[in-house]
């Protein structure tokens, strides 16, 4: 059955491309018709951002090695770097009552089912079907999607469930006295194995205690720009246990980088 679907999907791919063509063309037009001063301004902004991020990254590199060293001391496995693939969104609307999007990278690029998809701001969703030329991604806001998260401030773990609205996630499993505040950042907890740990998912938006119910009514606002980003990152993360790094191997590694 999957083979039949892959075959047919190659046939219908041109239709999907055709549908998303107008949107792409208008975007292309806006890109081409941008004024010189605007371009210059954007360039300055980007350069500033780049500087800012590279300085931040410098610090992170040191921290990462420190983390690896500490984990080695604890005889714990460390996370390998994740591999990413940039995929572009096709502007098609599959069904109105589900949050599915189509991206233009499929199993020909090695994209597989259950792979997490991110954008520059946070987690977008996961691949639910990979076809030869394209793949279907379920957004985290789909009513049948759930993502294991933890509060970045204190490590409180819970599950965020899609609400069917693009700007809202539900956190239905937290008790009334949970230590969670509006503005708390929720990051992926890495439980469940689908999403790698530590990527931002949402910010807690509102908290209302219902005295007559065991669980509080909490909602969160997704960090990723689900309805705006056109470039998405498909991530390969190693969820299989990584071989242990022994303490004697570490110093060489660190020296090599310095």
């Amino acid at each position, binding site marked *: 059955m999957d083979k039949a679907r892959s075959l047919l*999907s190659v*046939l*219908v791919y041109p239709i999907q491309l055709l549908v998303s063509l107008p949107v792409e063309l208008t975007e292309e037009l806006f890109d081409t018709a941008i004024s010189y001063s605007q371009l210059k301004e954007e360039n300055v902004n980007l350069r500033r951002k780049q500087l800012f991020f590279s300085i931040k990254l410098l610090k992170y590199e040191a921290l990462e090695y420190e983390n690896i060293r500490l984990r080695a001391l604890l005889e714990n496995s460390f996370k390998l770097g994740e591999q990413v693939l940039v995929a572009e969104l096709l502007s098609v*609307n599959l069904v109105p009552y589900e949050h599915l999007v189509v991206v233009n990278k499929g199993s020909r690029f090695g994209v597989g089912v259950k792979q997490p998809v991110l954008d520059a701001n946070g987690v977008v969703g996961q691949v639910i079907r990979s076809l030869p030329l394209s793949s279907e991604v379920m957004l985290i806001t789909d009513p049948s999607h759930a993502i294991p998260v933890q509060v970045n401030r204190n490590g409180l773990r819970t599950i965020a469930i899609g609400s069917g609205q693009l700007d809202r996630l539900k956190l239905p499993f937290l008790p009334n006295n949970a230590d969670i505040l509006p503005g708390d950042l929720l990051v992926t907890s890495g439980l469940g194995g689908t999403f790698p740990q530590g990527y931002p998912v949402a910010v807690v938006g509102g908290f209302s205690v219902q005295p007559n119910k065991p669980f509080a009514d909490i909602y969160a606002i997704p960090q990723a720009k689900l309805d705006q980003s056109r470039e998405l990152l498909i991530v390969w993360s190693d969820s299989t246990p990584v071989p242990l790094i022994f303490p004697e191997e570490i110093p060489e590694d660190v020296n090599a980088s310095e």
Partner: protein
Amino acid sequence: MLANKKQKLHGYIVTLIFAMVLKIMPLPDYLSRLNPDWVLLTLIYWNMAIPERIGVFNAWLVGLIIDVLTGRLLGQQALIYSLISFTCLKLHKRLRQYSLLQQSLFIFLSLLFSQIMIFWIESINSITQFTLIFWMPVLIGALFWSFIYMTLRFIRILGQIR
């Protein structure tokens, strides 16, 4: 002769592809919830107009393509389309005699049947909660029928699709 025949064949394939484009067109959320099933409407028209060309098997094939296009269970839309196509083929002589208003009523019932089947199948395999707006495309499709009928009739006469 052969080229002519081929051209005639292209006529309704193009309209079906155009209907598919309309079906998956990106729209604002509230509009996409109202977007009727253009493919089914087009299919019903061709079933009525040229039943010896477009039959249940063609409807089934179109349904399969729609299943893949919209990422549904493979065969779901194919089943719905072939059932509706079968009724249309059975009734096509009578349907042609009806006024547009009466036809719209038939379209309304067909679309309602299709939506009920979708509702049934989707309720089994997903936890999506359907609100009343889920049924709106049925009404809108029926309202759009005269427009679709006129357009496709114009195309049929222009392209001499028989």
